[in-house]
């Protein structure tokens, strides 16, 4: 195949495929403009950016804004919070869809099963703006959670104003919203496992728990690892909309994340170079985490992502 193609002049190939380029080139331009061109704008992190002078016209500032960043307490809080919230979400939320998929697979009634699936998938499609609004109502002073507290004789509490509860609220509402949806992928993975293996294990007298541990989990291990690597890649975005709807000044110390920090400083206060520097730190940490995870996955004999 290569021999015959190599003899064909590449110009002739392009001419023959010119219709294909008509399909592809507008899309490629789209990606170059909206995904690659912004990379040039990152240079303002190293400049004293002034909107009237533009990116090229602004003078260089060296590492001034990075020094400012690391001496701003709010930035260090946001960096630590982002990593903490993401790790909490992975550690606690990650197993939930796996457990859901395995248990869902054990349901006998098809109708009950499909009803459950319908209800489980729905919240994923609903925006955090809406879900956050509902969470806010449930946790407000006269909301349902405080009503339950009062049944046990406790006074009302403003959960969303308490910094030690904020991260738990983020993780819990994240589980409620997304676990059902992510179980779809595991359910699909479960159907790949050969049912004969289960049958012979049953003949050998293996319990359900042993079968789950020795057959089911190894059977979906590859899917688990791919999803784990992907979530490591998103570690630096701990959920902008979710935090934005739920947080307030009282919980900045534990709840402000990099994306909300960049939004407040960059868009609301117009400190473009400062916010761009924060964005660049975010990207670099994110890339390192993704590469390290991928390397670990490959070292332990898995396929990896990159």
């Amino acid at each position, binding site marked *: 195949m290569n021999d015959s193609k190599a003899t064909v002049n590449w110009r002739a190939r392009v001419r023959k495929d010119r219709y294909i380029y008509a399909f592809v080139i507008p899309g490629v331009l789209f*990606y170059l403009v909206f995904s690659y061109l*912004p990379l040039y704008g990152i240079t303002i992190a190293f400049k004293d950016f002034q909107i009237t002078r533009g990116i090229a016209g602004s003078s260089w500032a060296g590492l001034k804004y990075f020094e400012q960043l690391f001496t701003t307490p709010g930035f260090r809080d946001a960096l630590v919070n982002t990593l903490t919230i993401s790790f909490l979400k992975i550690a606690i939320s990650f197993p939930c869809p796996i457990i859901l998929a395995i248990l869902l697979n054990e349901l006998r009634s098809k109708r009950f099963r499909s009803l459950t699936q319908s209800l489980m998938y729905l919240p994923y*499609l609903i925006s955090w*703006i809406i879900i956050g609004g509902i969470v806010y*109502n449930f946790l407000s002073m006269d909301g349902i959670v405080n009503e339950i507290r009062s049944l046990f004789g406790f006074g009302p509490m403003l959960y969303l104003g308490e910094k030690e509860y904020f991260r738990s609220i983020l993780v819990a509402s994240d589980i409620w919203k997304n676990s059902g949806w992510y179980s779809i992928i595991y359910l699909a993975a479960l159907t790949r496992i050969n049912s004969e293996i289960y049958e012979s294990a049953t003949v050998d007298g293996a319990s359900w728990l042993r079968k789950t541990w020795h057959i089911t989990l190894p059977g979906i291990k590859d899917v688990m690892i791919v999803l784990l690597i992907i979530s490591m890649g998103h570690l630096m975005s701990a959920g902008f909309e979710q935090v934005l709807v739920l947080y307030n000044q009282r919980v900045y110390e534990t709840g402000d994340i990099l994306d909300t920090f960049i939004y407040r400083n960059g868009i609301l206060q117009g400190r473009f170079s400062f916010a761009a520097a924060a964005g660049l730190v975010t990207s670099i940490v994110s890339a390192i985490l993704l590469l390290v995870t991928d390397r670990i996955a490959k070292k332990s004999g898995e396929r990896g992502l990159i």
Partner: protein
Amino acid sequence: MNKKISVFRGFNLLFFALLNVAMIYPFWHTLVGSMISFEEYSNYKLLLFPREPTFDAYREIFERGDIFRPLQNTVVITVAGTFLSLFATAWTAYGLSKDFLGSRAIMTIIALTMFFNGGLIPQYLLYKHLGLLNSMWVYLVPALINTFFLIIMRTNFAGFPKEIEESAKVDGCSEFGIFFRIILPLSKPVMATIGLFYAVGFWNTFYASLMFVTQAGKKTLYEYIYKIVSNQEGSQFATSVAFGEATKFANIVIAVVPIMLVYPFLQKYFVNGTMVGAVKG
């Protein structure tokens, strides 16, 4: 042994029954909450059924009228965005499903964008330069192609037997003719699924409105809702009566109903495996 299994089955059934209640109750609470008076809301925290249903909250919203402009904007964005994005995605995906000079390099350039982005500020400066700030186009143009959907569609197109296209070519059909008359009609299921996902995404448009639009008349419905429900400074500690809870709930219901309406169609397709198959591949 058998007894053990049935105990497990029983617990499992109970677990999912409770889970279903936990999934549905917040939505039900919101719906019931939007249809009751303030007195009823203060007396009953667990909202199971409206004792005296009233549509006062909805009437109040429509009489105030400030929801209409953002609602109209969001409807326009959803309709225009879904068609534009679906077309742009299918158009590009069809080209990418072919083997041509540079196809591998181009796929790499596109797939890489799933792992990085320039960040908010460079994005903002680019949009400013392109004249997208404070323009309705900022909702449509940067969101034109979703890479994940593009790859799903490409996989779908690549799966068609080559003979169909070849025989169409013999019959004198051009490449564009093949795309419009053969590929698109054959791809109805995947087009419907991805179209619905795009529609839900455009309906939920919030980020671009918050970041790139300052003119009140061009804001989207979800930013309007955000201002009403969010935990912004002050609102938490102000009296909740100022913006009655029922009105907040009614706003949420208006914003969610369209998604609930398309959900059964959406679910029909993705459970049938169009999306899941692509994820596995």
